[in-house]
């Protein structure tokens, strides 16, 4: 998928001598309207926006993202709403890549083909499916590729060497390296130096792929990982949404400020 929007975003960041900034929010958190506003606003600073489609039984998410997901579901978010948020966003920011992220049961119920065609119509650029690992994801990933949607493979510190090679070989434009053994939102329990070392091993296998690091990245830690092609921040953003709602402050302004700070740290 040469020249995908995702690849272009990494190239742009590279030219500016910095990693790409990827943000994660849950669609519909805390309302459909609000999450669209947040997206529009933070995309002034983020290079790629990940959007979660919330599930009520998330087996790999920590407290912050769970809270966001439950809040969105409580406010009635449906899968079709997620697509319409993306569609509306893309009308205004057509060059910012959108990556949808979620659990396989929602795709399974929607059916794979319908899900992919809906992604295409809404101009979704990539997909992360947390509980559909390699090689189980081969067929679905191939379907995505045929439809010019990036299926993003995950790699973790537990991924064995031979497995790593196979995953990288089958990956599309972007690979997601999970920084440590943790659900999302955990405290960074591994030193940035060690994370970068592991990251480098993957990078050496495939110089042409864009590899991002995620899990446990906050304002405090982001700078120390700036060697990577891209850095994903999720829970820290969801936490800010929760905090702003609690304090009855402007969510859009507060979250945008967090993203602005994150961006400044890696410039």
């Amino acid at each position, binding site marked *: 998928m040469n020249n995908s929007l995702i690849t272009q975003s990494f190239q742009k960041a590279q030219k500016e001598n910095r990693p790409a900034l990827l943000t994660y929010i849950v669609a519909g958190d805390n309302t459909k309207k609000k999450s669209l506003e947040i997206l529009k606003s933070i995309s002034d600073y983020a290079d790629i926006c990940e959007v979660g489609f919330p599930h009520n039984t998330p*087996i*790999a998410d920590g407290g912050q993202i769970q809270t966001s997901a439950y809040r969105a579901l409580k406010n009635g978010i449906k899968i079709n709403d997620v697509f319409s948020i993306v569609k509306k966003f893309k009308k205004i920011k057509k060059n910012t890549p959108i990556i949808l992220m979620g659990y*396989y049961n929602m795709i399974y119920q929607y059916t794979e083909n319908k899900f992919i065609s809906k992604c295409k119509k809404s101009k979704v650029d990539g997909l992360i499916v947390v509980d559909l*690992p390699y090689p189980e994801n081969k067929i679905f990933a191939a379907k995505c590729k045929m439809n010019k949607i990036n299926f993003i493979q995950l790699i973790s510190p537990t*991924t064995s060497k031979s497995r790593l090679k196979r995953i990288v070989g089958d990956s599309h434009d972007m690979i997601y390296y999970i920084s440590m053994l943790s659900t999302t939102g*955990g405290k960074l329990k591994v030193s940035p130096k060690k994370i970068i070392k592991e990251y480098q091993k993957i990078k050496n296998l495939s110089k042409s792929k864009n590899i991002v690091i995620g899990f446990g990245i906050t304002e405090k830690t982001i700078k120390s990982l700036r060697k990577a092609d891209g850095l994903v921040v999720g829970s820290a953003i969801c936490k800010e949404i929760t905090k702003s709602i609690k304090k009855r402050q402007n969510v859009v302004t507060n979250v945008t400020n967090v993203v602005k700070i994150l961006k400044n740290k890696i410039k």
Partner: protein
Amino acid sequence: MKLKKNIPLIDQHDKFGFWGGKFGGSFIPETLKKPVEDLTTKFEKLRKNKKFIKERDHYFKNYIGSPTSFIKLKNLSNHLGGAQIWAKVVSEANGGAHKIYNATVHALICKAMGKKYIIGDTGAGYAGKMLSMAAKKFGLKCKIFMGAKDIKRQKPNCDAMKRNGAEIVPVYSGSQTLVDAVSECMRYWVSNCDNTHMCVGSTVGPNIFVKICGWSTAQISRELKSQLKKEFKKIPEKIKLINCVGGGSSAYGFWSEFIDYSKKQIELIGVEAGGSKKSKLHAAPLSRNAKIGILHGAASYVCQNDEGQIEETQSISAGLDYPGVSPIHCFLKDIKRARYTYATDEDALNAYKMIKKFEKINPSLEPSHAFAEAIRIAPKLNKDTVVIVNSCGDAEKDRDILKARLGNY
């Protein structure tokens, strides 16, 4: 989709872990791939290892107390006037339920893998209690994940876990029951899989956990088979094996030796939790025709909405209060080898009352669901039919609920 003869059902899956091509599998985050693979390799090695089998059998006999007794419920049979009703009193096992088999095996595996920490989920509290017992016995540090609602309604088992030195981690998300406990336990494992072993409390979860649990509880049917031969000189011509189904570990354990028999000779009947009569909610994905979905790392029939969000369930019995079910039972349903039905809260309470009136056993609310079905069908059957109920749990843990609902315990 077809059954293969002479191969345990737990082994009749394809290379991706699916039974019948669509139930089961391992829908897990990348981080768990390696620990699941390691566990799979280790388990396959251990089950072929004579020394390990000897060790297992030693603990089954001397620690769990195998075999549990097989008794005729004469008064109940006379009262109902139809089939002869028997019970396999699995609640005699150490700790008071079948969950001790799976817990003991997991503790042995944990030890064999050189891990010092063990975690597990629990609903009724039996899986947690048994894991805490086994952990204590084998010197492992134990954490049990349990929904806050279940902690309140199954206090006796929580007390036991604490006495055994386990830490109970209350789970406040979602419906605060078993489904949330399993999610939280899996999340904990994602973060700690390098030094911690996970036990799943039933025949659910990623493929390997279905297999380990089924392999452990299968002991129940091995015992029953020889007890039947002893009692009747041969396997009788007409048997009905009735078992409650939450995740399905006791049912699989009760049936595994008998799956190869014809349905005409040995009928397998699974009883799910129908919830309160007045409520729309239930925990009966098989008998109330839920759609296939993915929950806790496996595809099975799951109570869910059109969007794939897992539905809240409701049952008086915490052990059956779960929206999913074992992929093995989904397979048995689809090939029509087993029949699945449900009993309501009220049915189970009435069955409990009747059992208490006529017999000396004290089945918990889970097997009371199975007894409800036995009581329903027995009068319509002739006396040559042998109805056997797995009385897989003791009602001590339910004393508060029984007191509140029936006035006495």
